[in-house]
Each structure stands twice: as structure tokens, then as C-alpha cells.
């Protein structure tokens, strides 16, 4: 489903080249549920943005569903759902229901399929009470559920989530986690999730990838990750050790 081969993205900042991601290679098969971890500024969002075609890689290749994201962005958009926890992809001034109708028209989903999916999503995500509310008036938890529904209305094969549980209370988090687990198990949707919440990882992800300073520092199952640690360590301890063991970012002069 996802294939990166020595992919890299650098930015020129005041005559210096900063490598946000360098020589990153991994594969994710269809149906996997992968947690993508890393400290702030490690390159998580840059990776996600390369997968969606928002950023064009400066080296290496990226393939998602067999397509080059930056060249076939719109074709890929029909097969991927993307949620940014930090900001909504919905139309700020429109009621949630109108945003969904707009998505139906833009993704060219036929009316019946849309109706069925929207009904199912409205029920599982409990959207009913605020379908008529403009997006700007929704609470963070409501907005996140709205964003999730919006990303799934065209039934994508791949769901990419960038910090979907950021800022949510425990009940909202539990609801979203439960929903994602069922989506992956029942529909077989491939899910890639970045988060700083290790609870997300423990409860959802069979596979964990850890990126640091733009490079893959760990790739394996959650059990493998815990096996690298002395008995009695929690996942927090393990991840903290991995985060702090990193080398300083490489800055090559231009």
C-alpha cells in the first residue's frame, strides 16, 4: 500500500539545507495498522505530507497505492482519507452536513452509497446532535469526529491520521480509538497513525515505526519494541530512551 525507497525531503533555511527526512525506506502492506512515532520535529508530518502529495520529495521515491503522490495527487486523493488533528479539513463556515454533501459532490460518490455511509458514520461516531452546526462552532471532540467521517465518506483504502487524539478528553479518545480499531478489523482499511499519545499505540497498533532526526530508528511489532527493554520498563520508558538516544540533526552546508 505504501512504499518509500530512500525518500528524503530537505528545506533551504537561510542558505542552509535542513534535512527534515532523509533516506527513509519502509513498506506498509494493505490491512496493516501502523503507529508512527517520533519526537517533535523528527520528520513525522513531513513523511505524512509526502505520502499525500502535499510535499514533493527532494530525493528517493514514494509510492502510495502504486501511484507517485506528488504527480498523481488528485487520483490518490480518491483512495486516501487524511485527518490532521491540528487543523480541520472541513469548511469552517458551513454546517457539518453541508460539508459532507460538498465532499460527496467533489469525490463524485453516488447518492445511495453516500447515504448509507453517512448513516453508518453518523451512528458510530454519534454525529447526529451537531450535523446542522457550522464547523467553527463545534467542540474539538465533535470536530475531530466530523473530520474522521469526512475522511471516510469516499470509502478510502488508506487512512492517514496525523495526531488524531491531540487535545481530546479520555472519553472522546476512547471513542475514536474504538472506531479506528473496528474500521481496520472489519473493513480492512490500512491505517497509518502519528501520535504522541502512547495509549493510542498500545491499544491500536500492531506495528510501530519510530523516526528520529529524519531517519527510521525502530521498525517492528509492539512486542519487539518492548523486548528491547529490561523487564519492568513501561512503553514510556522505552520510547523516552529511544528519543533521547538520537544524534543531533545533520545540517549540511549548501
Amino acid at each position, binding site marked *: 500500500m505504501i512504499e518509500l525507497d530512500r525518500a528524503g525531503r530537505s528545506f533551504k533555511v537561510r542558505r542552509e539545507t535542513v534535512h527534515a527526512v532523509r533516506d527513509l525506506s519502509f513498506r506498509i502492506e494493505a490491512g496493516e495498522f501502523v503507529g508512527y512515532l517520533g519526537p517533535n520535529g523528527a520528520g513525522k508530518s513531513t513523511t505524512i*505530507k509526502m505520502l499525500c502529495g502535499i510535499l*514533493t520529495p527532494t530525493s528517493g521515491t514514494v509510492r502510495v497505492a502504486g501511484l507517485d503522490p*506528488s504527480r498523481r495527487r*488528485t487520483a490518490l486523493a*480518491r483512495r486516501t482519507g487524511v485527518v490532521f488533528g491540528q487543523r480541520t479539513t472541513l469548511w469552517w463556515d*458551513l454546517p457539518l452536513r453541508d460539508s459532507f454533501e460538498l465532499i460527496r459532490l467533489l469525490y463524485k460518490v453516488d447518492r445511495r452509497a453516500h447515504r448509507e455511509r453517512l448513516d453508518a458514520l453518523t451512528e458510530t461516531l454519534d454525529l447526529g446532535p451537531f450535523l446542522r452546526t457550522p464547523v467553527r462552532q463545534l467542540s474539538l471532540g465533535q470536530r475531530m469526529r466530523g473530520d474522521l467521517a469526512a475522511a471516510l465518506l469516499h470509502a478510502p483504502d488508506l487512512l492517514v491520521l496525523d495526531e488524531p487524539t491531540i487535545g481530546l478528553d479520555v472519553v472522546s479518545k476512547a471513542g475514536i480509538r474504538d472506531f479506528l480499531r473496528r474500521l481496520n478489523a472489519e473493513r480492512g482499511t490500512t491505517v497509518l497513525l502519528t501520535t504522541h499519545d502512547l495509549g493510542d499505540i498500545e491499544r491500536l497498533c500492531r506495528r510501530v515505526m519510530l523516526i528520529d532526526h529524519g531517519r527510521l530508528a525502530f521498525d517492528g511489532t509492539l512486542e519487539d519494541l518492548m523486548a528491547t527493554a529490561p523487564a519492568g520498563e513501561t512503553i514510556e520508558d522505552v520510547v523516552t530512551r529511544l528519543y533521547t538516544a538520537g544524534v543531533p540533526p545533520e545540517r549540511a552546508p549548501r
Partner: protein
Amino acid sequence: MVSSYLVLVWAWTRAAMAYRASFALMVLLGSVITATDVAVILVIFANTTSLAGFSRDEALFLYGVAGVAFSLCDMFVSNLDRISQHIKAGTFDAMLIRPVSPWIQMATDRFMPSRIGRVLQAAVVLGYALAVLDLDPGRLWMLPVMIVSGIVIFASLWTLAAAAQFVLTDAPEVTNAFTYGSGQLTQYPFSAYGRDLVRGVTYVLPLAFVNWQPGLYVLDRADPFGTPGFMRFLGPAAAVVLALLAALAWRQGLRHYRSTGS
């Protein structure tokens, strides 16, 4: 593509229509503001019978053609200049994850149906000029050609300005000087301007092909600057060249888009 454009226009129109009174007021205000442009022309001709060799009605004809093309672009394309805000706020990312060209999403962003007031005002002026001028009917085929070329030229300017924001990010005012400045410049017969300026807006920024060059043909006038006659017909070619350049710049801009942190 067209259907996506219409769908987005419809959505923003519905959002705008939530405030009906404000919509009516905006239409009125838009018409009044642009009407002052015409008032300026009328005031000039209250004191003189010709402006740089052109009669009042000829000047109104040139004004009307450029005005219709410009105000249509202002209504349907100019929202592209909001791109710098979206780049800075990081909301441009959201446009790149949808299966619709970001150009279309930007052009329709916060579409303001109330801008129809300016289109109507320009159309009225053009209609008046056509009614009172004794034009050669054999030359009127040029009218739709020049309006379409004008639309393409102005739309390309806005696209170039938007593409520049990928690099400049913080300079919408600089690019506005080009887009809205071009709209202002084409309101008067070019014979009112200096030779160097007219050269610039003929061979560098092809504004002369919006209404000046083809307008000379419709009005059956020789060019006071003495350009050869075939240049009256170069509007469509200039529009196509500029549109290709704009498309190229837009693509390059997208490839160099840097997004924001997080």
C-alpha cells in the same frame, strides 16, 4: 473540473446567502464604487471633448470592454489572491488532499456572489457605448473575442500573482499592484499614457490586447503610437501565451510548496 467549480461556487453562495441583507448591500456598494470610475470619465469629458484623441463614448467603450473582462475575473478568479493567507495558516494543505485541483478550490474560496454588481455596472456602460457609437457591424465579431481574451489575460495575471505567493508568501500587496493595477490601467485609452509605459504593457505585460489594440480595430482608428495593423488581431495569441506561462508558474509553485510546521 467545471462541475467541481460550480459545486464550490454553489456552496459558498449558500454560505453568503445566509446573510441576505448584507448581500443586497454588497451588490449596491460594489456598483456604487465602480460607478465612481465612470464618474471620473464623465467629469473629464465635461471639461473637454476628447481625451488623448478619443471621444467620450469611445472612451466608455474601451472602459466597458476591459471592465466586463476584469470584473468577471474579479468575481470568478480573484480569490486566488487569498492563497498567501492559506499558506501562512497551513490551511492550504487541506486543499491538496482533495481530488480537485487546488487552483479551482482557491479560485472559488469564499466566492462572493455580490461582486455581480460590478459586472452589471461595466456591462451597462458597454451597452450604452455600443448603442450610441456608430460602429461598423462588420467589425463587431471582435467584441466577444476581446472580452474572452481579456478574461484569459486577467485570469492569468491572478494565477501568476498566486504562484508568486509560493515564493514570496508575505507579499500579496505587491502582486495586488499588478492585478488591480492592470484593471485600473485598462480603464483609459492608452494614448493617454507615455510611450514607454504603453510599450511595457504591450510587449511585457500584454494588457494592450485586452481592449486597446482590438478596440482600435472595432473603432476603426489608427494607433497613435503607430504599431502595425496586424497587432490588432494578436489578442488571442497573447492570451494563450500568458495562460501557458501562468500554468507553468502555478505548477512550479505547487512543487515548491513547503507547507508549515507540524
